[in-house]
């Protein structure tokens, strides 16, 4: 009796914990969080673009907002979502390092000033030496700081890093004993507007290294290519609106601004600091260029040095990263992150 009870309990726990089955399915969930480069997703959902493309392929796509960025990726990694908006670094360190084979279906944009280092005391990166710096540790901010220090001949041990929640970054900067923060927009704009704040470094000095993606589960995508086609269709139809200088574009941008808690001017300022690939051909060109391999090599080196690839990782090669044309970085037998331009190419060729 008791044994049967235990078995039943264990079974139900296993059922709860089991990852999503990759059998052909009709309905898909993707998660997004507030960030200028991802705002097209909720707009597409609200304006019916998602439904239009999903209907075309006879599937159902749900677009869900998650308030906490890391939580959204963790939920995706745990199998609760089929796709999630995330950066190239987090795609490598959370799902890919966690064994969830992820495809960068859409390379949406790269940060071109949207992430930055702001200080009350230092005016150059070299002056950051010996300072205590508030940032979200192990995030792209941390990566940006490491790259900034590297460029000035400093190392991370020359500064003291204090992990600070992004939600409290603005309040943290106002505290008298805080001198330097590293953060992203819209917080960056807020922090820069403080009296006495100097912008010391930003992502426009390392263009193309902080990339915003839509990552989807590779297995789900392989079993349901229509899911990928629909997503690419949705994305580029919405981006055409974002880039539209006319009244329709303005209306779309206004809606996205409102949804991300800013106004049109604020949203357009953030867009200006983002290199958005409005045309699928540009995204394909970026995703197939040799530079992206160099970037991912820098990112995986940083990730490995900070223990983000897991404690069992012997070298940065442990998680393989696949690129267009069957090129790989690291372990070719364990490719878990794939930059696959197939669906963006289809959009570029008008084959959706």
């Amino acid at each position, binding site marked *: 009796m008791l044994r049967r009870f235990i078995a039943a309990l264990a079974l139900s726990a296993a059922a709860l*914990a089991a990852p999503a089955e990759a059998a052909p399915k009709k309905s898909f969930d993707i998660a997004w969080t507030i960030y200028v480069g991802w705002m097209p997703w909720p707009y597409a959902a609200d304006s019916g673009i998602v439904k239009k493309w999903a209907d075309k392929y006879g599937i159902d796509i749900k677009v869900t907002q998650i308030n906490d960025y890391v939580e959204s990726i*963790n939920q995706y990694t745990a199998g609760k979502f089929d796709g999630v908006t995330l950066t190239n670094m987090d795609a490598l360190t959370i799902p890919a*390092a966690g064994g*969830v084979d992820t495809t960068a279906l859409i390379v949406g944009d790269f940060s071109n000033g949207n992430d930055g280092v702001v200080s009350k005391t230092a005016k150059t990166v070299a002056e950051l030496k010996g300072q205590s710096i508030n940032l979200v540790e192990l995030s792209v901010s941390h990566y940006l700081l490491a790259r900034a220090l590297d460029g000035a001949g400093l190392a991370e041990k020359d500064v003291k890093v*204090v992990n600070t929640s992004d939600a409290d970054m603005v*309040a943290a900067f106002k505290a008298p004993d805080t001198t330097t923060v590293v953060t992203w927009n819209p917080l960056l704009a807020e922090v820069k507007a403080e009296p006495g704040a100097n912008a010391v470094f930003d992502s426009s000095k390392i263009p193309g290294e902080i990339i915003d993606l839509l990552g989807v589960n590779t297995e789900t995508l392989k079993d349901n290519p229509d899911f990928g086609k629909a997503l690419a269709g949705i994305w580029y139809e919405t981006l055409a609106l974002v880039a539209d200088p006319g009244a329709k574009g303005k209306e779309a941008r206004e809606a996205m601004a409102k949804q991300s808690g800013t106004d049109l001017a604020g949203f357009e300022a953030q867009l200006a600091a983002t290199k958005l690939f409005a045309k699928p051909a540009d995204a394909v060109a970026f995703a197939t260029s040799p530079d992206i391999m160099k970037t991912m090599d820098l990112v995986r080196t940083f990730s490995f040095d900070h223990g*983000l690839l897991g404690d069992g990782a012997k070298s940065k090669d442990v998680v393989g990263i696949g690129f267009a044309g069957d090129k790989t970085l690291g372990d070719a037998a364990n490719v878990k992150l794939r930059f696959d331009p197939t669906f963006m190419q289809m959009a570029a060729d008008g084959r959706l």
Partner: protein
Amino acid sequence: MRRAMNIRPGGGARVLLALMPFLLLALVYVFGSAERRAANPNDKLLPPISEMADTTARMATEPDRRSGEIVLVSDTVASLQRLALGLGLATLIGLTLGVALGVLPAANAMGGPLVAVISMIPPMAILPILFIVFGLGEMSKVVLIVIGVAPPIVRDIAMTVQAIPVEQLVKAQTLGASTWTTVLRVALPQALPRLIETVRLQIGPAFLFLIAAEAIAADSGLGYRIFLVRRYLAMDVILPYVAWITLLAFLMDFALAKLARGAFPWAYVGERR
């Protein structure tokens, strides 16, 4: 037939009964973990117990690559320092203010409503103010704990003192006691065992505020580590840390319970075993 309420398990049966739910939970976990690992050998969500043991051993014995410190030790020391300071200050405030409010009607008239209102403010909601006033260092973390747990202690002690039968206070006065002597000889002895019980109940909230503060801005601590490694879903670190925090809190609770029974045996005369 014996009534269920009168069946008392003996020593061995007691231990067995206490262990059973824990074993059951562990078993459920082991099955769930094995299931997920079978589907994805790199799964991070439910790591097997052996892996967690390895990680724990490493964190407890080997110095960290970046800081050179033994992570589990430095985190525990940092957190316990904050917790001890916060809980200690809150206890001190709780006792002095609580007894004052309980004994002096004038103090109660003035401070009672204030304490009642303050105790209703969710401390997490005023965090940005705390940061700007107390900075991001140790001070704001300790203050968060104090703001979170002192008001309930004050109120509980005040109510305990107010519940002292008025006859006792009259009797003390007829024997010539001043207000101060009454506080020392009548109110304080009866408030102290209750104080320990209240502090016991506040250990949980104190940990909650400690971890919240460490999650927001810190460079060491148990909460800091959990929120840091959450960024790459290192459940093999998070789960042992959660177990460790639970154990620490349990030991503190146990120690306080023993202390109360040792120091004030009279307060537990009516206790059923």
